[in-house]
């Protein structure tokens, strides 16, 4: 039902998430933001079971901020991703596992941009592009076909638009709008929301 996508370029990461907060067949909110800002240059996109998503994402968010307060410098995206994965793994075989699927996107001043794919079984993979949700079945092949490691920002946004057009064409559920953000060495930038048709 929910959809997340991330595309890494040579010096940026582009991420997008749909804006629907649903409860069974009802859209409770159509302007819901699924991205959590972990630090100035790290975003965590989180979908999954209701309640688990916000609780787990806020837990990670507050712990990353606490690290910065205690130690004076921020966690790198790779460190934050591994910390997140460790927490998911620790809860996995407890009585209350968190059923959440995540994308962590960040810009490290030494290593450059990074996109990390994590799922509810706490697998972690650094990938040039990734997607979560039923929409991923339709769009991963588009990313395979048209992705190049040296995409410019405009080309990446066009690739994102291609994926969303495919969802609007073939996906049975209506996802009218998507929040889009870009992370580069200057930080996190909000791009224009991508909407479908007239509202």
């Amino acid at each position: 039902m929910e959809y997340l996508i991330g595309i890494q370029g040579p010096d940026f990461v582009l991420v997008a998430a749909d804006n629907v907060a649903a409860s069974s067949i009802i859209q409770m909110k159509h302007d819901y933001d699924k991205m959590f800002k972990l630090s100035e240059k790290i975003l965590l996109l989180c979908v999954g079971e209701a309640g688990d998503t916000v609780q787990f994402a806020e837990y990670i968010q507050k712990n990353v901020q606490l690290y910065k307060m205690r130690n004076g410098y921020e966690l790198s995206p790779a460190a934050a991703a591994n910390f997140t994965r460790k927490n998911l793994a620790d809860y996995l075989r407890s009585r209350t596992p968190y059923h959440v699927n995540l994308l962590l996107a960040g810009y490290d001043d030494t290593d450059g941009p990074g996109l990390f794919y994590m799922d509810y079984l706490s697998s972690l993979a650094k990938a040039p592009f990734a997607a979560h949700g039923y929409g991923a079945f339709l769009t991963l092949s588009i990313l395979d076909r048209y992705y190049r490691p040296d995409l410019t920002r405009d080309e990446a946004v066009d690739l994102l638009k291609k994926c969303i057009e495919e969802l609007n064409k073939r996906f049975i559920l209506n996802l009218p709008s998507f929040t889009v953000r870009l992370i580069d060495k200057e930080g996190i930038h909000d791009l224009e929301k991508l909407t479908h048709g007239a509202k």
Partner: protein
Amino acid sequence: MALFEVSGFRSYSEVRGRQTHLADRTNHYNFGTKTQEFAVPVGVDPSGFLKTCNHDGGVCIDMNHGTTTLAFKFRHGVIVAVDSRASAGRYLASNDVNKVIEINPYLLGTMSGSAADCQYWERLLAKECRLYRLRNNHRISVAAASKLLCNMMLGYRGMGLSVGSMICGWDKQGPGLYYVDDNGTRLSGRMFSTGCGNGYAYGVIDSGYREDMTVEEAYELGRRGIAHATHRDAYSGGVVNMYHMQEDGWIKVCKEDVSELIHRYRKGMF
């Protein structure tokens, strides 16, 4: 957590080497099974027990579920409208239940789902809001009150609570409306409807809503939403209890019998 050990954090009482007799402030908002709100016998496992209570196991425990509640923000504040029916499976337990809890003159909570859960947890929320006011000398914000209720729900995750509530109030940020439910979902928005009649209510209020409605038009929209939902949904009915949240507190607008409302609307309906 992992970072605790790595960065060598030690709590105040460890560093000082003695038990502080002052209560650790951060434990005030601890809901859940670690510091339980009420005593439970050792060995009780609510989530395990509930898994066995389903129709496949031959058990027919039906919780009170039927309701329609709605709330929406508009130019002149927030309207809250609820029905008043309590059902237990196919039996109608009561047609005159109060599904709105008046937490304080600036905060209201609605109830849908299990009647017992809603009444207990929202009364507990009222207690926490009162304690907040006494400790901090200013009224709790709607966002904070809804976060408290959400954390209470998360403390008992997976143990069969059934709560679908809207926390509605007016604080320094203006009118506030939050939806909180038993999975720990907490959403801020302009319009929500909960309960098994919510689909019917959404249909009426979505199509009749305008941001610049007059107060009377908003009252009529709230009344219509509940009345039409109770007409179609068997598990909603009774009377419409309607509240209007204004800048200087809430007022109770009306308590009207649904069957009389439907009779009045008949001319337009058939």
